[in-house]
């Protein structure tokens, strides 16, 4: 089916995925939630919907709007990275991940999926900007939500690397495996971050591009691991030397 890629580019007059300028990518990413909200609203305006169906549609509108707002807020933050100072401080990733899971639970439930944090016995501290790190994990989780199988659980996990000098926060989804060619392309681009990258074939990759920028400014990096039944997107950050104070 890969022959169709050239056809796609010929028919659309712009390269598929990789070459999308960021402004076009942003517009593309924002169109999808707006389209859904508009369609649901138009249907509700028509009336004559059963009450439980109305309730479900309204819930979808609010959750979809929240996702779109997160993206616009990330975009704004991303544009201002160069002229703003971001304080790096010791952050407890365990607490942060627990907060994120609590925040995302309603969205995942509405999609018949679950999100869970696997807590660690020993507390860890890493050096980060809490807000930027939160946005990275939200971004990975949003990506995972889209690609995870129905009724599956997305797992957020914290690990130690490099004899404890690096802390990895990973978001694991259970769904279709990334094709090898996509993985190679993705890894190459992740290594050269920040450059436009795409999470999965149909995505412009704007979310991951922004996550890469956020990680970069915290002296960290993002990456992806392919599994036979899904993927793990992760961010690696420096462990805090204040760990011993805990």
């Amino acid at each position, binding site marked *: 089916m890969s*022959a169709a890629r050239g056809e796609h580019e010929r028919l659309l007059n712009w390269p598929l995925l990789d070459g999308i300028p960021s402004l076009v990518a942003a517009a593309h990413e924002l169109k*999808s939630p707006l*389209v859904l909200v508009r369609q649901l609203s138009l249907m509700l305006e028509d009336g004559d919907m059963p009450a439980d169906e109305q309730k479900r549609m309204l819930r979808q509108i609010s959750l979809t709007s929240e996702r779109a707002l997160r993206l616009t807020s990330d975009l704004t933050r991303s544009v201002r990275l160069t002229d703003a100072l971001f304080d790096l401080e010791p952050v407890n990733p365990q607490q942060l991940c627990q907060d994120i899971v609590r925040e995302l639970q309603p969205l995942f439930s509405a999609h018949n999926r679950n999100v869970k944090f696997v807590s660690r016995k020993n507390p860890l501290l890493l050096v980060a900007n809490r807000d930027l790190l939160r946005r990275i994990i939200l971004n990975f989780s949003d990506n995972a939500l889209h690609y995870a199988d129905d009724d599956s659980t997305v797992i957020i996990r914290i690990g130690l690397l490099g004899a404890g000098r690096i802390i990895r926060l990973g978001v694991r989804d259970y769904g279709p495996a990334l094709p090898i060619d996509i993985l190679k392309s993705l890894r190459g681009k992740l290594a050269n971050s920040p450059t436009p990258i795409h999470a999965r074939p149909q995505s412009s990759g704007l979310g991951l591009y922004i996550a890469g920028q956020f990680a970069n400014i915290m002296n960290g990096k993002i990456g992806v691991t392919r599994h036979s039944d899904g993927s793990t997107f992760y961010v690696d950050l420096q462990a805090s030397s204040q760990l011993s104070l805990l």
Partner: protein
Amino acid sequence: MSDLSVLIVEDDEWLAEQHARVLDRAGYKTMITSHALAAIQAIDDNCPDVIILDVLLTGSTAFALLHELQSYGDTGDIPIILCTNLASELSIDDLKHYGVKKILDKTTMLPSDMIAAIKGVIS
């Protein structure tokens, strides 16, 4: 009521559900798949009367599916309606030979446009 069956190929789960909601209320039988490979299986199993197809899908784009469908005589005749955010980038003239009969712009369409489009391609 209609006996016509419509396959919706759309990877946004809630948008697919919304399309199905509109078509169900108009009396069509609907099936939903989220990617091209599942769509091929659904077409083999159910031979829908019309396919509503998004362009940017998980795994392979709609054009991969269009190629595949055109390879076989029985599936090549199924009318296809592209329903996409990229409508302004596409030309129906370029896509006619893939069995695409109509392009709906997700950003401007009304729910009733999908029903009108189906009636148009069936007639």
